[in-house]
């Protein structure tokens, strides 16, 4: 059992590391505007797009214009999806005749998909039409991922450029990210997933007979929808026999591929990647984990190549891997140990609540770590039902800013902000002027790095605090006691860090979470992104300082370890009290 868990883990990371290099080179070529093996097909299309849109691909942008273009483009994304959700019932490809969203839910969903969060307080199979899923949500999956990639490429250019105001062209970076990277790999991913059993069709939902019929008692309601009660005050129920069951259909594979590749995470169905139509086999699970990690891992190599020292990229990747091994080990151990409250009822095996048999423990743990170490947020395991210390792992990964491979683009730029902080602190300790990649780290860089790292954390703590003194927000907790606190903390951690996974027992489809959550997602996405662009602009204008004896080498093992420690220390200092009160106390109660 344990041997297979390890084998699966090792093979996954071996494949990932083997793919990092060619994929990193490929992405470097894409961002340098050079020819790739896809150019013969895509170059004419790309030129056509620029011609139609009036984009001059040679035009260089300063950071303000780059940031403005990004904000403007995201505003268009938001407006389009918001309107689409509000008029969903009038649009085509809606075989189930699902109605429109309420404005609060439409607002939350539009912001959620625009910010690459994909927090969902609706249930896909019941609330979203095929048109919404493909022409609305999936398009946002592509374009929000491309936005993140554009921002990190701009930052890398800031390190590389010397005494210039330009950090690239947002339209070109966004277009090339989508056209050359996200689209081709999504097509490959989707076509690999279908033979495993991921569905892909536009059929009506299908009704099939049950081999053994079942039934349930439904509370009777009057014509106003108010539950009826008998004279004794007990609710009146009626017996409903069930002989057949409706199975939802849809274009799932195309959605699934970009949902993982773009680290978006919004499920086609409510059960997300635990649903057998989204993730039918252990192999589809393996492929989906690989898709989640592919771009974030490879971007570290693109970074190394672009700054002219691939060891810088491998150093960052190693730091990520160290954090990953630590998290995966903890989660695997916590879940394997099981829940003593259940085990003592003579139940054997690891904790299986909220898990699927086919994935095995390693398949569940790997997916959970991958989805929260990045900003993906798809789930194949219900995080709410993890053991307390098991649930602490995804929560901590999100709270430390999703830097274990990270979201596409956003993960690497957050990691580079941590690297700048690490350089600065070590510079203070050894009395040297902090430099990173040949650029002096000064006040602007420090301010911006701090904004990148602390915005989400401060948002999480303040908003969770507000939730805990708001009666309607507290009433949404589905589990009593300290676990309820963890549910709220997880909700804001997930939204402010643009993850999108949840301790899903929390009833988040109320105005409080829909509206305050929208604000958390906006702050968590755009404050860091704009700060990164401002930093890119500032770095680009600096001159290059060649490394000297006084320079701290950032491509060596000691720095990698130091970087990991800085991440852990900042995370621990910010969140220790909240985490101790949530998962910490619950663990003691469970083993007590």
């Amino acid at each position, binding site marked *: 059992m344990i041997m*297979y868990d390890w084998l*699966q883990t090792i093979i996954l990371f071996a494949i990932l590391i083997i793919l990092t290099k060619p994929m990193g080179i490929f992405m470097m070529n894409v961002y340098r505007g050079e020819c790739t093996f896809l150019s013969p097909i895509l170059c004419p299309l790309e030129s056509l797009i620029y011609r*139609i*849109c009036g984009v001059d691909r040679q035009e260089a942008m300063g950071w303000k214009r780059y940031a403005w273009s990004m904000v403007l*483009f995201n505003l*268009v994304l938001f407006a*389009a999806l918001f309107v689409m959700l509000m008029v969903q019932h009038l649009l085509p490809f809606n075989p189930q005749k699902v109605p429109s969203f309420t404005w609060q839910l439409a607002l939350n969903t539009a912001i959620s998909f625009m910010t690459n969060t994909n927090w969902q307080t609706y249930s896909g*199979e019941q609330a979203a039409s095929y048109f919404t899923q493909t*022409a609305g949500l*999936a398009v946002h999956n592509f374009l929000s991922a491309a936005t993140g990639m554009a921002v990190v490429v701009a930052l890398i250019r800031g390190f590389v450029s010397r005494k210039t105001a330009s950090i690239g062209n947002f*339209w070109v970076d*966004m277009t090339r990210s*989508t*056209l050359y990277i996200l*689209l081709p790999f999504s097509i490959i991913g*989707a076509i690999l997933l*279908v*033979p495993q059993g*991921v*569905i892909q*069709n536009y059929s009506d*939902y299908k009704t099939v007979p*049950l*081999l*053994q019929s079942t039934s349930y008692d439904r509370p009777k309601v009057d014509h106003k929808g108010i539950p009826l009660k008998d004279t004794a005050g007990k609710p009146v129920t009626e017996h*409903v026999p*069930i002989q057949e*069951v409706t*199975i*939802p*259909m849809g274009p799932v*594979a195309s959605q699934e591929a970009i949902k993982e590749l773009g680290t978006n995470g919004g499920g086609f169905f*409510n*059960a997300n990647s635990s649903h*057998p139509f989204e993730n*039918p086999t252990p*192999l589809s*699970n*393996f492929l989906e984990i690989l898709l989640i990690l592919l771009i974030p891992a490879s971007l570290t190599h693109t970074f190394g190549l672009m700054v002219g020292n691939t060891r810088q990229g491998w150093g960052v990747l190693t730091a990520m891997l160290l954090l990953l091994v630590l998290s995966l080990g903890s989660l695997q151990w916590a879940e394997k140990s099981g829940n003593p*409250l*259940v085990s003592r009822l*003579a*139940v*054997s*095996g690891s*904790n*299986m*609540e*909220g898990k*699927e*048999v086919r*994935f095995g423990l390693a398949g569940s743990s790997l997916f959970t770590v991958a989805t929260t170490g990045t900003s993906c947020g798809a*789930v*194949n395991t219900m995080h*709410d*039902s993890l053991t307390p210390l098991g649930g602490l792992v995804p929560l901590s990964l999100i709270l430390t800013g999703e830097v274990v491979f990270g979201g596409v683009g956003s993960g690497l730029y957050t990691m580079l902000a941590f690297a700048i902080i690490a350089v600065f602190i070590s510079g203070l300790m050894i009395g040297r002027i902090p430099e990173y990649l040949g650029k002096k780290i000064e006040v602007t860089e420090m301010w911006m790095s701090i904004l990148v790292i602390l915005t989400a954390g401060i948002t999480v703590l303040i908003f969770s605090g507000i939730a805990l003194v708001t009666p309607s927000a507290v009433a949404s907790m589905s*589990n*009593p006691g300290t*676990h309820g606190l963890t549910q709220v903390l997880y909700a804001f951690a997930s939204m402010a860090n643009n993850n999108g996974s949840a301790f899903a027992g929390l009833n988040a489809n109320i105005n409080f979470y829909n509206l305050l959550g929208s604000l958390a997602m906006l702050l968590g996405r755009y404050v860091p992104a704009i700060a990164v662009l401002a930093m890119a602009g500032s770095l680009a204008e600096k001159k290059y300082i060649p490394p000297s004896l006084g320079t701290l080498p950032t491509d060596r093992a000691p720095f990698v370890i130091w970087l990991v420690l800085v991440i852990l220390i900042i995370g621990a200092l910010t969140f220790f009290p909240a985490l101790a009160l949530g998962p910490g106390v619950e663990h003691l109660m*469970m083993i007590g």
Partner: protein
Amino acid sequence: MKDIKPAILLFIIFTIICGGIYPALVTGVAYFLFPKQAAGSFITDKSGKVLGSTLIGQPFSDPKYFWPRPSATSDFTNNAMASGGSNAGPTNPSYIRTVSDRIKTLRDTGVTGKIPADLVQASASGLDPHITPESALLQVPRVAKARGVSEEMLIKIVAQTTEGRQLRFLGAPRVNVLVLNHALGS
């Protein structure tokens, strides 16, 4: 302000490419290469009547059938229109009571010894089509008694239905409950 034009036009173009052409292309290729899987992995009987999807678990509670994993879907268990898990926290008292009740139901059918976790803890999707081989074997005496057949024959059918690790190293061994129960009927 000149950036408004590319913002709107790029969005429209990518909606057509990523939201229209891309899913249509994948659907076309999927139907051409893997029509059965793309449609939902449905199984039919000899007359062509659809029996269900091998991927979507169905509810069973009759002693003569193998039972699936507990499911927390709303209205009734394994309700495919309401996929999802229980989201019960590990120390939630009502959740621990639910697990105790499930154990009691199994004990009432004559089960002794330790019970595999997958048979008393609810799945993530609420539609998990599989149980572990241990959970299937645990139910053999009950099903044999209800059907008046030998346990050896059922053990054989369970063994035939058991799927191993995919590519020999991925996932966990498992038994598809719907397939197993259909195999019993014939």
